[in-house]
């Protein structure tokens, strides 16, 4: 799979710092599966994270923010030191009790980043599963809302030749292509590609090819589909 469209650097940095909403985080994780270039970028942002840990007090004085945490003097031992030293001295089974039981004794717990991938998405990542419970939104467009903590993630299945003016008037919109393709002002998006838009970008994607386009869409402001969508959706004639 050759990937040509990537999340913005700003999005990748926030993925690395753990500050994306879950919907966006899951979508970026899907792209990273296919994109070594972006994995390298995330790796760099994580290195910066490590450097920031080392430089916290300096950064706090640079940013001049009231909200910045006033660090304690870093030479003063951390308050939990004695408790931690005891933990280390204790027997292994006791040490295990502190670690959340949900993490069990998995060898990779904490070392590997995991995401809560909603089941329909998991099935689509494994294969183009036609048996998913798609809900028809308007003729030619079906969707499945996915369960995430911010409720901003959905799968969309769009018939060939549809023009979709998906205007988010507020907020960000990330789209990850799973199957099929579409074109907009920014180019042609194919499986593995991500379109990373904020409110300032207006685009009018048109699904091309003969197959439906299945994509994952993350938004942080509601898409106002009800009512006005049918008016906006115009089957693209001539393709």
């Amino acid at each position, binding site marked *: 799979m050759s990937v040509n469209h990537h999340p913005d650097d700003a*999005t990748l*940095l926030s993925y690395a710092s753990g*500050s994306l909403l879950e919907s966006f985080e899951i979508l970026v994780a899907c792209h990273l*599966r296919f994109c070594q270039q972006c994995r390298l970028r995330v790796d760099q942002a994580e290195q910066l994270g490590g450097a920031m840990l080392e430089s*916290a007090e300096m950064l*706090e004085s640079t940013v*001049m923010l009231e909200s910045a945490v006033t660090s304690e003097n870093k030479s003063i031992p951390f308050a939990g030191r004695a408790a931690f030293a005891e933990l280390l001295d204790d027997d292994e089974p006791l040490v295990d009790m502190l670690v959340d039981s949900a993490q069990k004794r998995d060898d990779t717990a*904490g070392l590997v980043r995991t995401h809560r991938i909603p089941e329909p998405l998991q099935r689509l990542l494994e294969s183009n599963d036609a048996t998913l419970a798609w809900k028809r939104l308007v003729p030619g467009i079906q969707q499945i809302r996915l*369960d995430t903590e911010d409720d901003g993630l959905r799968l969309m299945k769009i018939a060939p030749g549809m023009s979709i003016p998906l205007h988010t008037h507020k907020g960000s919109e990330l789209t990850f292509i799973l199957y099929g393709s579409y074109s907009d002002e920014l180019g042609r998006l194919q499986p593995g590609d991500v379109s990373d838009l904020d409110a300032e970008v207006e685009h009018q994607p048109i699904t091309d090819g003969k197959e439906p386009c299945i994509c994952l869409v993350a938004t942080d402001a509601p898409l106002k589909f009800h009512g006005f969508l049918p008016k906006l959706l115009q089957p693209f004639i001539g393709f």
Partner: protein
Amino acid sequence: MNTEMTMDYEPDQKDSIQHWNRCLEAVATTKDKATYMLFYDHFAPRLNSWLLGVTKDAELAEELVQETMLTVWRKSGQYDSSKAAASTWLFRIARNMHVDHLRRLKVRARADSMMLDVEPDEPEVHGGMHYDTARIRDAIKQLPVQQAQVIYKSYFEGKSHQEIANDMDLPLGSVKSSVRLAFQKLSKVLRP
């Protein structure tokens, strides 16, 4: 207040990165608790300061510090200094712990949730093996204030671009371009 301490700390930054990498490798081979406590004394306060910013909860921050430091101790055998600086490794583990905690907390009621790993099977890739903290510090100091602020809010307050836009009363597009520019400047300092 602690300016002097900070100044005292400066001269050896480059060495200090190597120092902690070696320290963690020593812990991995010897499993020596006293050596690990040196590592702990250096990183636990820093980790706590960071986690306090992202969780805004002193008790939780301390709990996550202990959990992270315990994981680092127990998994130290898997640390490889040719792949990542000790602080990068620590940052990743702490971030994973924090995000997992966040997700578990809010989705606990949803029975159908599953934590699934989406990392590819192929070996992990690594952009740079080491960085030089002194150079990164210089690069941060040279950032325009707004760029330093958005970076701070991304890493130390765990805020999304939209939340930063609301906080700073900026258009979302400006926040994204500030984060992007700052990232591009800072990542140039990472050695390939």
